């Protein structure tokens, strides 16, 4: 399977990364190299094998379902590029 520049553009859009139209053919070529390498996986017989979900056979710990943290508005906003009146500020999202 070969990736066309249009597919590369679609993937870039899904990944929310702006890619200039003139850079798309080179990007598509890189994807093709990497995916060509990955295609080797098709040689493996995976019949009846479950996809791995956890590398160590143990149950994940669960904590009690209670509030155990909070009241950290200032700390949470401290690194925001644009914070106003206790909120993260972003460009207009609703017309």
């Amino acid at each position, binding site marked *: 399977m070969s*990736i066309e520049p249009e597919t*590369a553009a679609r*993937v*870039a*859009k*899904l*990944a*929310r*990364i*702006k*890619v200039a139209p003139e850079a798309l053919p080179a*990007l598509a070529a*890189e*994807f093709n*190299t*990497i*995916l060509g*390498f*990955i*295609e*080797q*996986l*098709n*040689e*493996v017989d*995976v019949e009846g*094998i*479950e*996809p*791995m*979900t*956890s*590398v*160590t056979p*143990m149950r*994940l*710990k*669960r*904590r009690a379902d209670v509030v155990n943290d909070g009241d*950290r508005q200032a*700390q*949470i906003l*401290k*690194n*925001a*590029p*644009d914070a106003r009146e206790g909120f*993260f500020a*972003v*460009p*207009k*999202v609703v017309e």
Partner: protein
Amino acid sequence: MSDLTRLTLAEARDKLRARDVSSVELTEACLTEIKGAGALNAFVHHTPETALAQARAADARLAQGDAPAMCGLPIGVKDLFCTKGVPSQAASRILEGFLPEYESTVTQQLFDAGTVMLGKLNMDEFAMGSSNETSAYGNVINPWKVDGRELTPGGSSGGSAAAVAADLCLAATGTDTGGSIRQPAAFTGIVGIKPTYGRCSRWGIVAFASSLDQAGPMTKTVRDAAIMLGAMCGHDPKDSTSADLAVPDFEAMLTGDIRGKVIGIPREYRMEGMPAEIEKLWADGTDMLKAAGAEIREISLPHTKYALPAYYVIAPAEASSNLARYDGVRYGHRAKISQGDGITEMYEKTRAEGFGHEVQRRVMVGTYVLSAGFYDAYYNRARKVRALIKRDFDEVFASGIDAILTPATPSAAFGLGEMKDADPVEMYLNDVFTVTVNLAGLPGIAVPAGMDSQGLPLGLQLIGRPWEEGDLLNTAYALEQAAGFVAKPDKWW
């Protein structure tokens, strides 16, 4: 070079406890070395005031006789660890200016034990790279040189490896997703261990591929690795994948006695086109373990060949999800937007400006393999192959193998810029011997074992049973004793 900075953790600890030297003296000696080593570009954020305050506090503890093993020992910390109030940007532009409001569990545990942090260490951006050439801070230079050529220290923990090899600090933290501790350790002639998945808490470490990432120590000796690993690991309720298991005294397990241990030599690791020097190193290492009383057995790990392709589906898939958080809203860089731009344009411009080329490529590959219509063909298939790779190891260990010996890397350190025109897959081949260990969640350690004909260090890798880092470290200790690697790079920086 200051004699104090050349000390191992174990030697420095003993001198501190004997009051032959103070932590402030050790720390000042390291800070002086760091100041003179700008050419290596290993330390990228300096924290001398904090370091000296920590050293004074450690000296006070030592005076009271309350001194855990790491108390007063100055180390460097990879930029991937969030350190409270200290820049922690994973060598990425997108986290420029980010000052964490919290401390990673691993660094907190080290500080609780009295460890001194000298500063933050360079690395590949978001730990994605094998040569430290993807860093927003620029390349790290390997302290080992050949004919004046600048070499890579490896990656992604390249700054950690260079700093330890150049005696700028006594040890450093690293992280390893596909070989990022073991490959740079091998390229710089130091020891690096990636523990079993779940040994070290991942909380507060900038995530790359969460099912593969593990922290570990990078040190001058195996004994130091045992000492520092003990301080780094342990159960943490803040990481649900962290194992609730007791941490043994790893150092106490270093007897050097490996008589009767069974060492597996996997035939699939004898790659086509493997340099003769690597073959010889591997054969020499095998002989050393045999001479130390171990039984050598040839083994088969039939799915080895598929580890790299499986990794280059799983790791980018997880990265594309983990790195979705860098959107210019909550922290880090936000692009300037133009009139009429909405939030989508802000995301797209921010991520295009903030992420370097390799990170963008991996995020997009991950996005592709997870996208509708390809999820089963790529992602699920890769996870099935991963299950088979783990099964290969399970079967070998069940047959009585205690540890597996392999080369750590397919070559010695290569020149910076040498891989510039190579396609991305060629760079990925650096991890061919290490990546299986992450996919199977096992502990693996790189030990310096010899030199190539140019006079560059080469490393061997030992792979152990899950949770048996103590036994693995002991086998590594026996190998270290037998190999007797003591070479240091000539100081040119």
